[in-house]
């Protein structure tokens, strides 16, 4: 590794712009003649829209238009789609109600838009919105899955009787029942996985600009995947064909999944820009983010695990109700099925697994993938189950895990996934050593003397990243391929531009992707730039989510680099009158091995573009592209251990220590990886202790601001102790597994296991607020 190559903690190139306020986010962009949109949103969780009177608003000077749900439907703008088809156990396709970009007749969650005001200023649009009178007829509403599936519950969509979207199963039911019949012990657990609001720092924003003469749209949007946005907007929403629609996702301030999807506001902005002949900008505020950004999680689960007499797991049964909210968001259907139930084997040999997942509509904000997406729910279930089992079977929780770890690879689970490689004992051993697991009993006794309840909790997670290959996901219902593309352009002066279909919204691609080039060519990263986020610049890409950018996106870059290097070597060999096979690349030079003959990269590049003296038949130029489709998922895994104290008087939790031992395969930039783990742990701990998107029984949201929704803050978190145990991923040439979601996947169970250990009671739901913990301590 060079100073800036693979494995070096290079300082992030993009940070200069971000920390000096020079980033260019969508809301920073101002176009000539731009107008501002303000949405009129339903205050009711469920209601009929009886009429919209915009006459007074239209009289306000500076108001350009008031457009309604009826008009967008009349103009045949398509309904929002769900991109992954799930089949129920009875063979029927999933049952979905229509989701128009603005509600023409019925609103089904608080915050759903019924109309939009377009005006010369943002403030005017807001003023005018107050002058629009919407007449609603309220309908009964339902917010939680348990109530929604009851007979007589308010019904959301006629297409989905009983509010049921699907009833899906995976695994071998008969084999699982047989395993339970023979079991020595069965451990049962009821769990709720709390609903979360993603809250990226930058709220969503969109600017649509329609060019009447060219019949061409430009959309600036806060997207994690601009090409997918363009594909969906043109193929399903009738906005424009792809060559008449340019989507730009410039600097984007965090996504965590919530910016994968195409939202109604972007569609409305595009449509309104054509209707008004003016650019239209919309930037959401924090309340709109709480009400309309896709939420995460929200499962209610019953699980049972069967053990034989020697404490080996023999079977697992899971039944989960997943709350989808009022509409099926873009990837929502896949989250509690293929991203959740396929991970239910965890790090363990479980010969028989059967899971049933029932997807349910409720009058709440739509739910979709949020950092981890299904995998945190699976990991939380298994790791609470292992802890509960250890307590019930009266064995050490770490020992019970070790006795059941998968140790032979590759390993085929009973739920689709085939793990390629891993060493679960290594990561658990590393974490136990880091936290001095053996010395815990002594520390607990000391804490007790000081009036504190001390607990320790283990969580051994595995996840599946870089979701792939395209053929496999296609056979499971995915509407898209999950490869990535890249292009390497060597300019005539030898500087390099990497065009990637991955999108950086906090991940640091502008640094890590350059490090691969530095590693291979020995040039400084300052000579390399990363181009992403613009459909006019990058031909196609699947974007960034599911920890896929390094494992898939960077591998695509590697493939393109290899092609470029092969051509450059030919040019160098020709110039040096040497054999191509003798050319090696070092420190930015093409050298003939064993000699002092060399030609620098800029000279090779110049030769490629002057084309004065190229090998016979070679095309000029030095530019190559590649599409890379992985052969399997990657499987990051690790062990987290949390030690904490509970104040019995208040139920407040304080961290003593939190250690993480992750196996991410090869690390490109350890510092950036560390940052990713810190952020993930913060979100996992946030879910365990703090965060909860709550609705009252009438489906009114009661946590739509930071006064009520507890975002994790720095002082809520411990100082993490991170380490790595590495097995290289055999599925890609760089050996990378991915690190973006691990913290959020593994942390929550470690925290709850530690609290339940401290208080000596197992029934505790997330978030473990002081009130809840205190109540549990004092419960019978």
């Amino acid at each position, binding site marked *: 590794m060079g100073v800036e190559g693979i494995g070096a903690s290079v300082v992030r190139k993009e940070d200069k712009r971000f920390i000096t306020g020079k980033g260019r986010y969508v809301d920073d962009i101002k176009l000539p003649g731009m107008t501002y949109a303000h949405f009129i949103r339903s205050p009711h969780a469920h209601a009929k829209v009886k009429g919209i009177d915009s006459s007074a608003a239209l009289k306000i000077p500076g108001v350009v238009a008031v457009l309604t749900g009826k008009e967008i439907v009349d103009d045949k703008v398509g309904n929002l789609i769900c991109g992954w088809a799930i089949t129920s156990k009875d063979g029927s396709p999933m049952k979905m109600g229509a989701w128009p970009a603005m509600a023409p007749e019925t609103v089904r969650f608080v915050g759903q838009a019924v109309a939009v005001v377009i005006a010369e200023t943002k403030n005017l649009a807001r003023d005018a919105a107050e002058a629009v009178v919407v007449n609603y007829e309220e309908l009964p509403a339902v917010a939680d899955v348990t109530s929604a599936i009851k007979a007589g519950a308010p019904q959301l969509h006629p297409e989905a009787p009983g509010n049921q979207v699907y009833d899906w199963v995976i695994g071998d039911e008969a084999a699982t029942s047989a395993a339970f019949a023979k079991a020595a012990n069965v451990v049962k657990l009821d769990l709720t996985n709390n609903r979360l609001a993603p809250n990226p720092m930058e709220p969503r924003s969109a600017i649509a600009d329609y060019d009447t003469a060219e019949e061409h749209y430009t959309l600036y949007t806060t997207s994690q995947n601009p090409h997918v946005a363009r594909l969906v907007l043109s193929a399903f929403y009738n906005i424009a064909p792809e060559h008449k629609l340019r989507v730009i996702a410039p600097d984007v301030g965090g996504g965590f999944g919530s910016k994968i999807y195409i939202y109604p506001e972007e569609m409305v902005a595009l449509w309104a820009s054509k209707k008004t002949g003016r650019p239209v900008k919309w930037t959401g505020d924090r309340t709109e983010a709480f009400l309309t950004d896709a939420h995460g999680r929200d499962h209610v689960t019953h699980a049972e695990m069967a053990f034989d007499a020697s404490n080996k797991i023999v079977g697992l049964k899971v039944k989960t109700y997943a709350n989808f909210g009022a509409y099926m968001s873009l990837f929502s259907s896949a989250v509690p099925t293929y991203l959740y139930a396929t991970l239910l084997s965890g790090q363990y040999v479980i010969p028989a697994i059967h899971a049933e997942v029932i997807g349910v509509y409720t009058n709440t904000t739509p739910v979709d993938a949020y950092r981890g997406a299904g995998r945190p729910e699976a990991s939380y279930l298994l790791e609470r189950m292992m802890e509960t089992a250890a307590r019930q079977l009266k064995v050490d929780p770490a020992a019970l895990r070790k006795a059941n770890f998968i140790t032979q690879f590759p390993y085929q689970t009973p739920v689709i996934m085939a793990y390629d490689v891993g060493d679960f004992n290594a990561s658990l051993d590393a974490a136990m050593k880091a936290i001095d697991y053996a010395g815990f009993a002594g520390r607990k006794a000391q804490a007790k003397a000081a009036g504190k309840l001390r607990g320790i909790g283990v969580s051994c997670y595995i996840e599946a990243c870089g979701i792939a290959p395209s053929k496999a996901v296609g056979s499971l219902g995915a509407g898209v391929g999950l490869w990535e593309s890249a292009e390497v352009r060597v300019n005539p002066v030898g500087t390099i531009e990497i065009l990637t279909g991955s999108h950086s919204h906090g991940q640091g691609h502008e640094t890590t992707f350059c490090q691969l080039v530095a590693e291979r060519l020995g040039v400084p990263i300052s000579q390399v730039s990363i181009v992403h986020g613009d459909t006019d610049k990058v031909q196609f890409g699947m974007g960034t989510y599911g920890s896929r950018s390094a494992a898939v996106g960077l591998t695509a870059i590697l493939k393109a680099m290899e092609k470029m290097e092969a051509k450059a070597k030919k040019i160098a060999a020709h110039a040096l009158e040497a054999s191509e096979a003798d050319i090696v690349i070092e420190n930015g030079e093409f050298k003939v091995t064993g000699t002092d003959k060399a030609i620098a990269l800029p000279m090779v590049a110049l030769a490629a573009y002057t084309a004065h003296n190229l090998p016979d038949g070679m095309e000029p130029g030095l530019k190559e592209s590649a599409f890379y489709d992985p052969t399997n998922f990657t499987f990051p895994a690790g062990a987290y251990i949390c030690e904490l104290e509970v104040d019995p008087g208040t139920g*407040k939790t304080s961290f003593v220590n939190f250690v993480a031992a992750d196996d991410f395969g090869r690390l490109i930039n350890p510092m950036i990886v560390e940052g990713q783990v810190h952020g993930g742990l913060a979100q996992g701990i946030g879910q365990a202790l703090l965060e909860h998107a709550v609705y009252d029984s009438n489906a009114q949201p009661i*946590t739509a601001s930071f006064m009520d929704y*507890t975002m994790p803050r720095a002082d809520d978190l411990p100082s993490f102790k991170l380490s790595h145990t590495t097995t290289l991923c055999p599925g890609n040439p760089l050996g990378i597994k991915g690190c973006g979601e691990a913290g959020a996947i593994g942390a929550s169970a470690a925290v709850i296991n530690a609290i339940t250990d401290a208080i000596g009671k197992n029934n505790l739901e997330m978030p473990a607020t002081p009130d809840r913990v205190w109540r549990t301590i004092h419960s019978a």
Partner: protein
Amino acid sequence: MYQTTYHRASSVDEAASLFGKGSEAKYLSGGQTLLPVMKQRLASPSDVIDLAKIKELIGVEAAGDTLTIKAATPHYDVATSAAAKQAIPALAYLASLIGDPAVRYRGTIGGSLANNDPAADYPAATLALGATIKTNKRTIGADDYFKGLFTTALEDGEIITAVSFPVPAKAGYAKFPHPASRFALTGVFVAKTKSGDVRVAVTGASQSGVMRVAALENALKANWSASAVDSVSIPSSGLLSDLHGSSDYRANLIKVMAGRAVTAAG
């Protein structure tokens, strides 16, 4: 935010006269409550009269047995004031717990007491210490000042100019922060006056705002020690109950925080 007219007053009298001229005027101090509410369009004052730059409204002074904090003094100044730390350390400590640094640099004691948020910190100290609220018209004793949620004895247009705290023999504050807002989910201020009286005020817990708790006062008068609160029973009726704290949890917190406040007071 709706259109409004901003005025910067240079004296209390000028502020009061500007207030009289506006159709729906509002005083602005630190703006930490008023401005967010205006941004959300929940308040639409015709005129905003800024008190925060009036010199006579800024400063912390100790004289004899009284500590006076002028109304537009930001929380940060109180938290770091040598005079406050010397005279009533519990009060400086309380100010250091309000919000975050940005809030403490702007938010003021006058704004906090005028607003009388049921979860604000200053009302607990003001009531427990038996402070006097000085206005441009009169002086109001703490026991007569707080009238329930967001309600005070202030008349329309009346300006708080200062708050005078009698220096106690002992005082302590213990705050259990609301996990999200970090206001007080329950905060308890205990004070033992120089004449031996004990006053306990609780914020964040009651449906009717800051309150004194006679049972705690009696127990502590009999025995000034953290363990004295153990035998007190706090009913949960009349207490707030919400996502972050049920009424019985708050009742528990009142006792636990009272004990910790006494320990802190020494």
